[in-house]
């Protein structure tokens, strides 16, 4: 479904990504692990078309998407939940969710959008209670839920999440990862970037490990969880 080959990205003279090759198949949750500064976010930003690659190809659904603008890529079906949530704090919760529909808003019926909204509210009942409040009044965990909800509203064929667990309490992280599993059951493939390797590998089908702009290891999530190198470097054991 998503195939990245030999992707290179230069960021102000620094080579942030060095020959990344990665795949996400239908019905997979793929986790990309790695320390801060390994290039994980740059990877997502180049898939989303915010950062342009200097070399390499990104093919989605048989279509080359590197070089396309971010709005074209969203329309093609790749939606990103960015690091640090980046919700629109000055808009209400419901309006934030509606912004997710931007690329298909004029083509979709009101009923189908209302159905999507109810689906998001089923996942996150807290958002429904506070739908008219400003997103800036939400806690970190609730903002993360809102950011994911906004991603769902875009009707993605592939959902990418950048560090959804960042700065959240363990219980909330568990909630959020359960919802990712539920989305996966609805046949939305997920590309998940995480520093919280244990949690990420537990829900993932496969995983990649990045270091200094390169992929240094890849494999089935269950194998990675037992790998000695991964355990010592990322799982704190």
């Amino acid at each position: 479904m998503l195939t990245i080959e030999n992707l290179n990205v230069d960021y102000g003279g620094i080579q942030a990504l060095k020959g990344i090759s990665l795949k996400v198949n239908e019905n997979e949750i793929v986790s990309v692990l790695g320390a801060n500064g390994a290039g994980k976010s740059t990877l997502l930003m180049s898939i989303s078309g915010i950062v342009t690659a200097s070399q390499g190809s990104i093919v989605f659904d048989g279509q080359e998407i590197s070089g396309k603008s971010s709005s074209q890529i969203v329309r093609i079906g790749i939606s990103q939940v960015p690091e640090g949530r980046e919700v629109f704090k000055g808009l209400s919760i419901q309006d934030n969710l509606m912004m997710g529909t931007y690329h298909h808003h004029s083509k979709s019926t009101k009923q189908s959008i209302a159905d999507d909204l109810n689906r998001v509210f089923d996942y996150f009942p807290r958002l429904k209670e506070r739908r008219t409040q400003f997103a800036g009044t939400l806690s970190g965990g609730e903002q993360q839920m809102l950011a994911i909800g906004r991603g769902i509203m875009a009707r993605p064929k592939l959902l990418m999440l950048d560090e959804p667990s960042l700065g959240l309490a363990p219980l909330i992280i568990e909630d959020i990862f359960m919802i990712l599993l539920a989305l996966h059951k609805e046949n939305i493939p997920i590309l998940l970037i995480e520093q919280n390797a244990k949690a990420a590998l537990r829900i993932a089908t496969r995983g990649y490990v990045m270091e200094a702009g390169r992929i240094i290891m890849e494999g089935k999530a269950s194998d990675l969880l037992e790998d000695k190198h991964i355990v010592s470097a990322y799982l704190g054991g």
Partner: protein
Amino acid sequence: MENYQLSLAVQFIFAGLTSGSIYALVALGFNMIYNVTRVVNLAQGEFLMLGAMTMISLHAGLKLPMPVALVLSTIIVGCIGVVFDRFIIRPLKKPTLLLLILLTLGASTFLKGVALLIWGKSPYSAPTFVEMKSISFLGASFSPQILWVIGTVVVTSCSLWFFFEKTFIGKAMRACAENPRAASLMGIDVKNFVTISFFLGGAIGGLGGMMIAPISFMVYDGGTMMGLKGFAAAVLGGVGSYPGAVIGGIVLGLLENLATGYISSFFKDTIAFLALLLILFIKPSGLMKRTED
């Protein structure tokens, strides 16, 4: 004697409302551009001058009917706003705040220069939009044009409120303003909205100039002081806030005219900047700044 005092007060208040409305229009246009791009546009007053001059040329020079001249000049000044963005703001690789301010200041001088070449140094004026006798109210009398000026502010600010609070596109524009990167991740084409904001910013500024053209004379550099006072009004009301722009403008206009009338005309230009300094000392976020930002 008491009657005289009353009509004098009414006269000052209406004069204040009139100039206040113009400051409000400048401030609305200023906020329009600031909100979407974070550009502090010090050339906003020149949009006002261009609006007045273009309208006068189209009406008096090309003999176009007044409504046509009004609509055309609004569009023309809006397009000047777009050109402003395309050729001055967008080519910047690393737009820093200081660089942007200096550039808009440079652009303001440039626009004045162009206006000087086109219209020369002589002042121009336009006829009132509808021929009417001056209106009398509580012994004070004033030009009917005042109603147009106030009406324009009311219609402009209500439309802006409706657009940004009630329409999907308006909300998307607010999303762009708040977080351009997250907005692009939603598939919102941020650059288009920047263009729209410069168009609207120019058009609103130009509209302000057209409204006062029948009341006061306009010269090639007549927009600068208006622009500065509109900027003061925007800061007074809270930079970025549309209700703040209207309130800031009206408060400034009233202060200015009451101070001129009751104390000394010496205060006419001083009061705006005095108010600007005071608000920056006491409540730098402005009178109406929304707290959720």
